[in-house]
Structure formats: C-alpha cells, structure tokens
C-alpha cells in the first residue's frame, strides 16, 4: 500500500466518523461504557490489592526469646531469618522496648502498672516480629526456626515461644480467603471484560450492518477488499480513541466523587489520587483497549459483507 492509498483510507475513515451522525454517536457511547467498565475493573483490582495487602500486613509471627538470651544471639537469628526468600521483613524488639511499649499501652491503667512495678525488673521477653511475603509461607518459616541450631545456646533453646500455633488457624483461613478473593476477583474482571467487549463488538457490527449496501456497491464498482475495509477500521480506531479520551475525562469527577463517598471504608486508599498517580498507564490501557476493540470488531464485522 503506498502513501496515496493510506492517505485516502485515513481521510475516508475520518469522514465516515464525522458524517456518521447518530450511528457514530451511539458507537462512541457504547464504547465509552465498555471502556468505563474496563477502567472500573482497574480500580477494583487496585482496591482489592490494597485491601489484601493491608490485611496481610496485619499478620505476623512473633518469636519470643527467653530473658537470658543475649542480644547478639537474637540479632544473629534475625540476620539468618532475613536471608530466607519467603521473609518480607524482620523487626527486633528488645526487652526494654517491649517494656516501654507495654507501659505506654497501659499508661492509664494504674493497677497493671502497679503490678508490673511489684514484680521488679523486666518480665517481658525480647522478640522478633517476622512478616512473610505471603501468609501461606509462615509455616515454612516457623519450621525453619524450629529446626535451626542458631536458636539454641549450649543445648538449651533461647526461644521462649513462637505465637504461630495460636495464630495458625487465623493465618490459614486468611491465606485461603485472600486466595479465593483473588481468584473470584480475577473471574469477575474477566467476565465483565468479556461482556463489555461483546457489547462493543455487537455495536460496531450494527454500525457496519447499516453500511452493508454501501459495501456491496464499493465491491461492484471495483474496490478491493482492503480498500473497502480500511476506512471502516480507521473509523473503528477513531471511535476507540474518542471513547478512551472521553472516559479518561469523565474519570476525574467520577473518582473524586467516589473517593469522597468511600474514603471512610478504605482508609488510606484514595481513588482520585490513585487515578492521578497512574494516569499514564490507565490512559494507555484505555487507548489500547479502545483501538484494538474498534479495529478488531470492524475487521470481523465487515468480513461477512465482502463476499459479493
């Protein structure tokens, strides 16, 4: 195809779109709804990830050390645990820090503080709070800890207790819930995406159906299939681009409004600021979806009318 033909196809596609009137408007409207669904799936997925991460971050396993364990031995254990690939981070809390935190937490509870004073010294253990990359990995981390020779000093274990067994049921359930939510979320996203793509396809097909006599005439006056298809594909692409830009404009007020209404449910997650910070990639996804949908739907829709 030389430049002259490309130029003609582009111009004809642009004119088709501009002169399409109600048909172009209806196609843009439906494509806008389709892309808006795709955009909301992006937000839903981000929200889901944020919520699951928040929950995951609230889960950890604490290893409490006997009061006689030296700080050097505990830090040695810490550095070994940090080397495990499944560990996200390990935080060390010394016995003194634990005591300070305990006092701060019970600052208004005179009775507890009095009891603590009567005990004398520091009854609290130093501890390591281990956070895994995935909740399902806690078991293997704990297994490593229990088998590790670093946890014993001269034959006696320096570990007082690991709170994994108490938390195990909660962690297991949470792991299952997170996995199920991800799978259901993915299924919903795929389902909605397919449904909206089919709607867009049907609309483009309908738009091309209105031009089927025109296509037959083009064939009869000697136009090649590629020359007939070209402008329809260009029109489809323009429809996709216009719809993507329309959606990205509408998302500003929509995310701001939805953000103010949902801010109290999802503390720390703002739809509007997520949209602003991910504007480039979202716009790219919308444009790519619009262009691919418009072009592919046009190709499939027009093929059946090219047999004359």
């Amino acid at each position, binding site marked *: 195809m030389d430049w002259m033909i490309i130029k003609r196809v582009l111009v004809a596609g642009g004119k088709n779109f501009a002169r399409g009137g109600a048909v172009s408007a209806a196609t843009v409207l439906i494509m806008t709804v389709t892309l808006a669904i795709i955009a909301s799936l992006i937000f839903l997925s981000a929200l889901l990830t944020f919520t699951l991460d928040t929950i995951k971050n609230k889960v950890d396993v604490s290893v409490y050390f006997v009061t006689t364990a030296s700080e050097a031995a505990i830090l040695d254990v810490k550095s070994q645990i940090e080397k495990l690939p499944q560990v996200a981070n390990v935080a060390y809390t010394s016995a003194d820090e634990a005591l300070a935190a305990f006092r701060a937490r019970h600052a208004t509870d005179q009775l507890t503080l009095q009891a603590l004073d009567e005990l004398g010294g520091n009854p609290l253990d130093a501890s390591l709070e281990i956070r895994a990359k995935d909740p399902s990995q806690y078991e293997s981390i704990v297994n490593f800890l229990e088998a590790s020779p670093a946890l014993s000093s001269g034959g006696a274990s320096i570990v007082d207790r690991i709170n994994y067994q108490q938390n195990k049921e909660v962690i297991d359930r949470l792991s299952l819930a997170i996995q199920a939510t991800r799978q259901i979320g993915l299924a919903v996203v795929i389902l909605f995406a397919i449904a909206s793509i089919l709607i867009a396809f049907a609309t483009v097909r309908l738009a091309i159906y209105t031009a089927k006599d025109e296509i037959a005439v083009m064939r009869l*006056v*000697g136009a090649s299939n590629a020359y007939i298809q070209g402008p329809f594909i260009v029109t489809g692409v323009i429809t996709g681009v216009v719809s993507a830009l329309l959606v990205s404009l509408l998302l500003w007020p929509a995310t701001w409004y939805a953000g103010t209404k949902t801010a109290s449910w999802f503390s720390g997650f703002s739809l509007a600021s997520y949209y602003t910070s991910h504007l480039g990639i979202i716009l790219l996804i919308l444009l790519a979806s619009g262009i691919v949908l418009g072009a592919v739907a046009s190709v499939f829709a027009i093929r059946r009318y090219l047999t004359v």
Partner: protein
Amino acid sequence: MIYFDKVTKRYGSMAALEEVTLSVAPKEFISIVGHSGAGKTTLLKLLLAEERPTEGNVFFESIDVNDLPSSALHHYRRKIGMVFQDFRLIPNKTAYENIAFAMEAAGRTDSEIKSDVPYILELVNLADKALHFPDQLSGGEKQRIAIGRAIINQPELIVADEPTGNLDPINTFEVVEILKKINEMGTTIVITTHNKGVVDAIGKRVITIDRGRVVRDDAGGKYIL
C-alpha cells in the same frame, strides 16, 4: 466482447435462466426486455460475477468470468461501469466523492481525479450539485451521478439494470440521451428495462427474455412482448 455459452442458472429447483446463448459485439447498445422475473437481472448478475452459472460459461473478452477467483473480481469489475435502478450511491459521500470513489478504487492519482470528476459532473449536467449528498438530490440527479460514476474510468462496457425504473418521463429521457451519447463515444452498453418508450427511443438491438429463455433477438428492434 461478451459471450454467454449455454448458460443455465438455477436457484434450488427453479431455473432463472435456461440454456441462454448470446453474444454482444463491441460498441453495441443492447436492450434486454422481459416481464418481471424473466431472468434479466440474473443475466446481468452473471456478467458481473455477482452470481455463478449452474451450467455453461460467461466470457468477457477472453476472460472466463466463472474462473475468476474472488481476489481478482475487483480488477475485472473495473472494466465494467454499473448503473442500478435504485442508484446505489454511497449515502455519506457527496456527489463529487461518489464519482471520485470509483477512480480512487481503481488506483487513479489525485491529479487525475481533480481533472476528470469536474468534467464528468459537467457531462451529466450536475456541476452545481458536486457537494450535495445523495439525500439532497432528486431521483434523476442521483441516476445521473450513478452514470457519472459508471463512466468515470472509461470502461469498455456499461451495464445498466432498469436505470429508468424509478424516474419520471423527463428524467428517463435525459438518462437515455446520456446513455446514447456514451454509446456514440464508443462504449458498449447493455441495459435491462420494462419501459417501451426507452427501448423505442434507443432503437437498437433488443433481446427479449421470457421465463429464463431468449425468445427474440432483433437488431434495430422494438419493444414487443
């Protein structure tokens, strides 16, 4: 130039054309007449390769039309200009663009289009309607644009299927005059019609089809059914 060799076309068990044999020489002006459903349009569809014969062969010059693959049809159709009863203009293109489209489809350059289209618009007496869309034109004007589109690439043959079927007597007369002028310039013309006035005004060879068979073929004939 055109040769139908024992052509039969059946739709299911019904024969639209049966054993039709006829030939058309270059520069002829042929009127094909017959009742509705006689097979006139089927004959033209076979010539345009819109349909394939059930039996027999259709030749255009040395081309066996039946043997053309789908990918070569558009090259073949560029040799023929077509005019239809219902005009079949492209609704979202102006009169100018409708005529230019046939040139664009044939791969003609922009400068050729710029010089030829205004000339053809003058020829069909519609230069002042160049920027009108089909729904802004009368039936006669639409048909003249369709004729302009058919002749713009200077085809060897013009095929017109009931070109005056939707026109009033004045527009019918104008269209016939334009077709006669085109024929005088050396283009072969095949038209189908019901209109006795049209056939008599042309006064050239008339082929009569009845129930799928050629029943009369008169050089310089009149409309007789």
